[in-house]
């Protein structure tokens, strides 16, 4: 080792490195440094910044002149918890999670099992159709659906009128708007989950099914006795990631409804965005971010615990 080390040219990026900096000592840090700096700044550091800012009255004035920023303790949190709009945003996020996550996980699993039923070219060609929404911009998708939902000239109401159903206020009725916005996100989110489920399905050894067939198991029995139990980890993984995504729900309501009508589709993320960037109340919005972070962290930890208890 020492002989090879001596023969090694001590250089990095073509710059001679002083012999006292041994290659093995410095190089890995130089390689890791830039990436780590970026990552840590915009995640871990940002949580601390948010926590600190949430205890101040930082607003647009304070941003221009830091001497105006005051420490105000937990005042932002008190205001937050007494703001009905915050509770409504929290409730809306809960609604989106309760409606969206189970629909997506169960729906995607069912579609993936169906797509995996046959290995024929036809079935494989169909997959692409289900994948595409997942990679297209949510902004563009929201515009398209906004158009389909339009209550004056939208296609959906026209199709309903053909079967004699009355016009639906897709985006202007507070209750219906929640479902309409969730539907777009479900349509968009399914592709990703289907891909993950399909990969997991293909990892199941075919012998299991052959053995089950020999024992006379029917199709449904195969699904519920073999497929679903063997897919437990994939189902868990997809549930966690989908749940986290939905707790951060933002793009669809932002484009489709701007959170309306009267806050009916304002998610937590949208609430934070509005407080921060529409009203420029950065301290207050940071407090809301910390609360959202605490909720997401708590739910994630609970799920990991449940998972451990499950397998242990």
């Amino acid at each position, binding site marked *: 080792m020492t002989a090879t080390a001596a023969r090694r040219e001590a250089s990095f990026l073509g710059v001679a490195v002083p012999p006292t900096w041994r290659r093995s000592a410095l190089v890995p840090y130089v390689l*890791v440094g*830039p*990436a780590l700096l970026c990552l840590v700044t915009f995640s871990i550091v940002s949580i601390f910044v948010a926590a600190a800012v949430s205890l101040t009255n930082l607003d647009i004035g304070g941003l221009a002149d830091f001497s105006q920023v005051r420490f105000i303790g937990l005042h932002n949190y008190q205001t937050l918890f007494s703001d009905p709009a915050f509770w409504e945003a929290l409730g809306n996020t809960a609604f989106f999670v309760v409606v969206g996550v189970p629909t997506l996980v169960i729906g995607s699993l069912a579609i993936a099992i169906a797509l995996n039923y046959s*290995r024929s070219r036809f079935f494989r060609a169909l997959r692409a159709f289900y994948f595409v929404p997942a990679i*297209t911009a949510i*902004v*563009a998708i929201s515009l398209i659906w906004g158009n389909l939902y339009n209550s004056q000239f939208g296609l959906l109401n026209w199709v309903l009128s053909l079967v004699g159903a009355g016009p639906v206020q897709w985006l202007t009725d507070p209750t219906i708007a929640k479902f309409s916005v969730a539907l777009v996100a479900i349509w968009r989110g399914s592709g990703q989950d289907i891909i993950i489920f399909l990969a997991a399905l293909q990892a199941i050894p075919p012998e299991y099914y052959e053995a089950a067939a020999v024992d006379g198991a029917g199709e449904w029995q195969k699904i519920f006795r073999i497929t679903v139990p063997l897919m437990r980890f994939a189902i868990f993984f997809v549930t966690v990631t989908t749940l986290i995504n939905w707790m951060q729900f933002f793009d669809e309501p*932002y484009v489709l409804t701007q959170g309306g009508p009267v806050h009916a589709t304002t998610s937590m993320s949208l609430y934070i965005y509005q407080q921060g*960037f529409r009203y420029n109340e950065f301290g207050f919005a*940071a407090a809301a971010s910390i609360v959202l972070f605490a909720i997401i962290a708590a739910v994630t930890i609970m799920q990991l615990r449940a998972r451990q208890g499950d397998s242990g």
Partner: protein
Amino acid sequence: MARPRAGAFILGPLLAVGALLTAFPFFWMVTTSLKPLAESYTYPPTVLPSTISLASYQRLFGDFGFGRYVVNTLIVVLIGFIGMFLVAMAGYAFAKFRFRGKGFLFVLVLSTMMVPVQVAMIPTYLILNSLQLTNTLVGIALPTLVSAFNIFLFRQFMTTIPDDLLEAARLDGAGEFRILWSIVLPLSRPILAVGSVLTFITGWNSFIWPLIIANDQLNYTLSVGISLLNKQLAINPPLQMAGASLMVIPIVIVFVIFQRYIVQGFTLSGLR
């Protein structure tokens, strides 16, 4: 393979209907974007345009200055590729070097995945503002420049590169940067392909950061430009759909060409 199972004759058509329903909004997007404005308001709506009009696309690039947004979006994507290079560097170090604090730093990388993007929205803006990077394209690209999950993927892949190969290059006097550039990266082509496609998609589609960080139209990306089409006083469906097509069609083309890599990437990462 054995003969098709009976269920395939029921599931096949069902899945085909589902596929058409999934694809329909895109079809509607393209046809509407080609309609003259007056036709888009007609009731009942027409499915296919009676006359094909490119007026909406001309307006997007003319009155609405979308050419600029396309260029900005491409610049953000290119900066994203620099980020992927940083990811490759870090992945290489974690895969092939032993150094003090390695375990801790790797856990640190993974733990950053726990911080959701939307939660970091306010502090990230404040950090970029203090660096005077708000309202710049670099500022837009920076928050998502490095992906922790990609570091993990690159590390996993690069551990499979034989140590002997790197050791031999060192004996020949190659510097570490050269080894990375001319040995490690060429051998990592499969993971680079997955990473590149995902980097393109993420950069092209990114919305929340340009929305927050770009304050003036000079720095808008396509996604922000398109979201503003929904805030026009009079709704103009062909214009909106032309904007959506401009965003979606390049991605669909990328998908058709690189489907294999995209599916691999999604399978591995769940698209982070």
